[in-house]
């Protein structure tokens, strides 16, 4: 394999991994606050369709990103209301969010299915950095949302592990009763990070409809929201590790396409199965490894917090 092909594959892996990365970062925040949100797929879909509609009518992809954030945040706030205030089962609430989002996005997107987007995000070269050998053409000939994700990750890592607010967030996820007795407003923390998580999932969805595809079609996410939930476990709830996971999954996605183009004798259906089977295998391996190292989910993940039961 020549270097050029390798560079092309790795660059596509980043592009394909970016929607997963945004969604996984959002889910990390929500789960760090102790709320499991299985509505990622639904939030991404609603983000994708709202982003596309906004970008289509304003001719500005950034307006699309903002609309997607708002839509994803609004979807997430339903989940927050149900699970934080009404203490509903987080698994079922998240599932209904996904089913609801699939329907809502299909409904809103019906009139614009397949419309091409005139002003999608375009790749551009980062001056200086794009001339770094090997790394440059892989990482720095991307589009604005990819560059934005390069900035968000270190910021989020710093926030989680080096700031007091980040510490409070982690405390809420690990032990909400203790956090509460320290004067942290547990309910507010949960609301805030579930909603920010939804905004990030919205961006992930919009990346698909504004850059990766770029058009709207029903179920454009094709299970990527669920792969993002798996990525959170893979990343052991650490944003820095989510990068690696997202790009590996993106690479598998891209590899399927590349093999298809190379006319290999494997039916396309089997190549399309790759990311899903890969997710299962990775999840099994990672769960075993985490258990051995005693790395686990935030202690209170999935449990409703009831002040009277402290």
């Amino acid at each position, binding site marked *: 394999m020549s270097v050029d092909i390798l560079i092309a594959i790795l660059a596509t892996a980043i592009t394909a991994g970016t929607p997963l990365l945004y969604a996984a970062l959002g889910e990390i925040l929500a789960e760090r606050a102790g709320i499991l949100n299985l509505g990622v797929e639904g939030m991404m879909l609603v983000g994708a369709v709202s982003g596309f509609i906004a970008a289509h009518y304003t001719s500005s992809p950034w307006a699309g990103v903002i609309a997607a954030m708002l839509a994803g945040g609004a979807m997430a706030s339903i989940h927050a209301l149900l699970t934080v205030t009404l203490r509903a089962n987080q698994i079922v609430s998240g599932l*209904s969010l996904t089913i*609801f989002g699939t329907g809502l996005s*299909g409904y809103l997107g019906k009139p614009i299915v397949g419309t091409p987007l005139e002003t999608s995000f375009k790749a551009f070269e980062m001056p200086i950095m794009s001339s770094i050998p090997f790394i440059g053409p892989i990482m720095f000939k991307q589009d604005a949302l990819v560059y934005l994700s390069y900035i968000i990750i270190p910021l989020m890592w710093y926030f989680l592990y080096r700031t007091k607010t980040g510490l409070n967030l982690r405390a809420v996820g690990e032990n909400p009763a203790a956090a509460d007795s320290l004067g942290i407003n547990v309910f507010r923390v949960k609301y805030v990070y579930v909603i920010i998580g939804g905004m990030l999932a919205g961006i992930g969805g919009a990346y698909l409809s504004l850059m990766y595809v770029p058009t709207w079609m029903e179920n454009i996410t094709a299970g990527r929201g669920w792969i993002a939930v798996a990525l959170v476990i893979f990343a052991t709830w650490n944003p820095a590790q989510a990068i690696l996971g997202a790009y590996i999954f993106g690479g598998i996605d891209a590899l399927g396409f590349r093999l298809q183009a190379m006319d290999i004798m494997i039916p396309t259906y089997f190549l399309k199965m790759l990311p899903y089977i890969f997710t299962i295998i990775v999840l*099994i391996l990672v*769960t075993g490894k985490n258990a051995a190292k005693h790395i686990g989910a935030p202690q209170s993940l999935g449990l409703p917090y009831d002040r009277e039961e402290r």
Partner: protein
Amino acid sequence: MTTDNTRSLISLEKKLSPSPVMNILVPVISVFLALLTGAIFLALTGKDPIQVYSVMFNGAFGTKYGLTESIVKAIPLLLAGLGLAVAFRMQLWNIGGEGQIYMGAFGATWLALLLPDQPAWVVLPAMMLAGAAAGGLWAVIPAIPRAYLGVNEIITTLMLNYVAILWVDYLVYGPWKDPAGYNFPITPSFSESAILPTFGDTRIHAGLLIGIVLAIIIYLIIFRTKFGYEIRVIGESPGAARYAGMNISRKIIVVMLISGAVCGLAGMAELSGVTHRLQQGFSPGYGYTAIIVAWLTRLNPLGIIIAALLFGGMQVGGFAVQMNGVPAAVVSMLQGGLLFFVLGGEILMRYRVSINSCRGDDKA
């Protein structure tokens, strides 16, 4: 704790057991509120909600044809809802109903194509067995890592849905494609003996009887047997179950096998009763809708019969509104919204809600 102001307005006290009135009232009110919210949404997007709902209702239940079609669509929801409810009872989140339906259909088709000349009393039981086995084994794949390593079954069961659908795609576009099918992604039609009998001149097929009988059997298993009791204990307090010496790992595998087998039967019944061949995308997400069907009834197998009929009606109503230019996706929106209200309403069952005057937080 003076900083928390949500507390001072509404206070929640845990009830010891949900009241039976609330058990009926909450789903009924939820349906009403979901329709109301849907109406506001329809009005906001420029549709006439009353017209949409009346078209939907008439399409589903207004004519004899609509009503029988609603029952036809209810059959796979009933079977899959039952399958999922068994697993959900144990807090085992089988989200893979859709894939198990597809694998059940695959197993049933294999037998139907293998035994074209056998009589119905051989072929139909063989298809049922193969469908149940294929669906069940498909569910065991994620059950094993769940049982022995604690691997999250929500994600693995869901991932297998995509794999199963692609597998069926491969078959109907490839080796099993009907040579006389004008290149459509379908297998050849089943022989007469591979087709479930129907009632009168309707399309309602014997799958309905299978579903009702299974609902009763599963009800009895869950509430009247030691096995069912253990499933419920594991679901409600796994710690106590382990302390009582129950073998949880083995139970996970058995329950997933049953759950997947019943979902597989849903696939078999849909093919043998309705499509009479395997075709691409024959299930419009029955496995996902069945999650709502099961949860709406609080996992009561007998209640699932009624909920499946309601949702079958929504499916048919969705086709009716589509002809009037309203996307059929409005149906899954309503269904998802319905579950929100059911979930929110559960708090009324589990807690006594009281609104305090603004005197402060003296109750807490």
